[in-house]
């Protein structure tokens, strides 16, 4: 399949195939591509920020544009780059790891992707008329008073893509609960599947807080309510609470999946079973649980009072314990292993010290008293980039190098991979390490310019130089992707020769039904178990028989277009009531799609036994 049949089918048919796909692997790739695109966009915004801050009192961009730039950078990177890329990896890999042929709700999966994409596009269309400018945290009352439609784009864009994410989370939970292969008990699931599961639960509980907050904000801005307006009896701090009740779990949604990635990469390249599997699972849950009780550590300086501050400070520090458990378990996994170092492994190894620094500054910030000094300074910027770049981005890159051969059937080029790793790694520390000190010296975050001769000049210059190194690394990675697509070395099933989990038992890339026969899982690391017993393949759990697969559908895309039109209408109906036409017709399109979906029976299709036997495995 794949290349040859795609070429035979012609461009139109291929496009149609991707627009209507409900295959979790294709949707995974779409997520990776969409997220990758927004990552480049967010990166460009970051470079513009760093150019502006390269020298004192610089005039590269105006103050207003600067505010738009930092807002869009943060929003894009969190919601449109990091999360979708993670959802992409989860989508592609998790069903393979549990031995499933698709996710539980393939239609919903596709709807989730389109909502994310159109939400992101909608948000970015704001660039033409004025982007949001109240920071990615969008605090009231600044956001309520911001003129123009920038904030409205923020609200509607995030509402759309947030709905998509919520659907993705629910889908993964149901898939993991219901669709595990015979013998795949919970405590035999690979760690990446576990972290997908727990991150999805976090999505399920955290996103509603954002949804509610955005709705209140929408009503305040568009329909004259006053939830956040103190002059009319509202309370601006409620926005902060709602945002961070979502926001702190969100940072764990970003980090847990990559904890899973590292827990796959280390055992594979150290040729050792993951150290402390049970403790790893337990620590994941503990982090998720504590992650919900610490949101007010972002609000220490709001004036919640000493009791509330102390409780949240202690809860926050407690999170360092399960995180520490994980770090030590990875180190013990490496200890005494026969280690093979390649690009995936380099990203993973680099993660450990980088992330630990981020965790350490986190504990420093968790001290409420000290936070009065750190808060809203470059120290915080240093902290969260160490955890988000040193953790999430390194993890994404490790995961991409590790699973690329599985997803696309070809190895990424090692040499290019190592060049991009080293430049990015050096650039990352150049950029962000010095920012801690800039913060301690008093440089506030989100300031457009800084003054000369206040001890901030050199630090900012170094930081900007680091950003160029990182950009270079990203460009080399892009070249690597292009090179690999054209000339990459073909990968076999067990691409690294030391795979342990089910995804390495099927062809690279997998056929669209994944498993010709569902495998019988006999323990943790099922492929490894078969290998130790001298078996080349998994023992099947069922005879070769007809496979039932879902049909593709264009409805999710049309439904999303409907919602997007409605969102546009909401944004502009404040000025001109004729825009309500867009609201009603957009919603009508979406409702008609839902009705069609509900009334039209679609039982999917079957792949016959004869066909399966013809293909071999």
């Amino acid at each position: 399949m794949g290349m040859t049949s795609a070429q035979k089918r012609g461009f139109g048919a291929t496009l149609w195939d991707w627009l209507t796909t409900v295959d979790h692997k294709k949707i995974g790739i779409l997520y990776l591509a969409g997220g990758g695109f927004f990552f480049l966009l967010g990166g460009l915004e970051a470079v513009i920020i760093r150019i502006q801050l390269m020298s004192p009192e610089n005039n590269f961009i105006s103050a207003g544009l600067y505010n738009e730039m930092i807002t869009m950078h943060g929003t894009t990177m969190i919601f449109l780059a990091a999360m979708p890329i993670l959802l992409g990896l989860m989508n592609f890999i998790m069903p393979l790891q549990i031995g499933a042929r698709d996710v539980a709700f393939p239609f919903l999966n596709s709807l989730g992707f389109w909502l994310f994409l159109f939400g992101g596009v909608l948000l970015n269309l704001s660039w033409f008329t004025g982007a949001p400018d109240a920071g990615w945290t969008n605090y009231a009352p600044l956001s309520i008073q911001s003129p123009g439609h920038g904030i409205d784009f923020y609200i509607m864009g995030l509402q759309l893509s947030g709905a998509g994410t919520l659907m993705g989370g629910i889908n993964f939970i149901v898939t993991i609960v219901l669709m595990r292969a015979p013998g795949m008990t919970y405590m035999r699931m690979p760690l990446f599947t576990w972290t997908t599961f727990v991150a999805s639960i976090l999505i399920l509980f955290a996103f509603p807080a954002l949804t509610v907050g955005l709705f209140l904000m929408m009503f305040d801005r568009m329909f004259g309510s006053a939830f956040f307006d103190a002059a009319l009896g509202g309370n601006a701090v409620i926005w902060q609470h709602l945002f961070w009740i979502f926001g702190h779990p969100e940072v764990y949604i970003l980090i847990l999946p990559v904890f899973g990635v590292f827990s796959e990469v280390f055992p594979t390249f150290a040729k050792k079973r993951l150290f402390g599997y049970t403790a790893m699972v337990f620590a994941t849950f503990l982090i998720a649980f504590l992650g919900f009780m610490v949101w007010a550590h972002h609000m220490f300086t709001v004036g919640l009072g000493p009791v509330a501050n102390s409780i949240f400070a202690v809860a926050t520090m407690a999170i360092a314990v399960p995180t520490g458990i994980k770090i030590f378990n990875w180190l013990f996994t490496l200890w005494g292993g026969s280690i093979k170092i390649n690009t995936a492994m380099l990203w993973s190894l680099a993660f450990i010290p980088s992330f630990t620094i981020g965790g350490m500054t986190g504990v420093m910030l968790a001290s409420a008293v000290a936070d009065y000094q750190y808060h809203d300074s470059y120290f915080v910027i240093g902290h969260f980039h160490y955890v988000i770049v040193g953790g999430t981005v390194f993890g994404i890159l490790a995961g991409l190098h590790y699973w690329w051969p599985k997803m696309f059937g070809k190895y990424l080029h090692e040499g290019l991979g190592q060049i991009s790793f080293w430049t990015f790694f050096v650039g990352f520390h150049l950029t962000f390490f010095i920012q801690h000190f800039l913060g301690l010296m008093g440089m506030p975050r989100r300031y457009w310019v800084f003054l000369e001769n206040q001890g901030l000049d050199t630090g900012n210059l170094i930081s900007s130089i680091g950003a160029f190194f990182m950009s270079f690394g990203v460009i080399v990675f892009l070249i690597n992707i292009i090179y690999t697509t054209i000339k990459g070395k073909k990968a076999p099933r067990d691409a690294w020769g030391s795979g342990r989990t089910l995804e390495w038992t099927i062809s690279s890339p997998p056929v669209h039904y994944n498993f010709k026969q569902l495998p019988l899982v006999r323990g943790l690391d099922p492929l490894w178990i078969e290998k130790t017993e001298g078996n080349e393949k998994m023992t099947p759990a069922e005879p070769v028989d007809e496979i039932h697969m879902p049909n593709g559908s264009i409805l999710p895309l049309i439904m999303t277009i409907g919602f997007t039109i409605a969102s546009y209408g909401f944004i502009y109906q404040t000025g001109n009531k004729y825009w309500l036409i867009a609201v009603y017709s957009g919603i009508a399109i979406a409702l008609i799609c839902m009705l069609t979906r509900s009334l039209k029976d679609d039982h999917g299709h079957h792949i016959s036994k004869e066909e399966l036997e013809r293909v071999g495995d």
Partner: protein
Amino acid sequence: MTDEMSTRKINSFQKQKNKQEMQRMVVSFALMIIFTLIAFALVMLEVPSTYVIPIILLLAFVQVGFQFFYFMHLKDKGHEVPSQIIYGGVFITVMVALTFTVITWW
């Protein structure tokens, strides 16, 4: 032959269970509607709010219980994981509400 017998037995057992399940659903559904009517009635009859508020909260609490245990099958066997997740959600919601009450509105 025996096989057929046993499946028939299972089927009738299943039927019985389904019927029971249906009965319970209908009863709890009826109760929920009655509770709602009571709540409305109390307000319309202008009973003093010192009584109305706690009574309505109590009714709401019971209704949520019905909703979870009967309609969302929390009580059923084989639903342990979904139940646990829902309990987690309840826990977080309660905690958030509590925090709001204590540090924002008090």
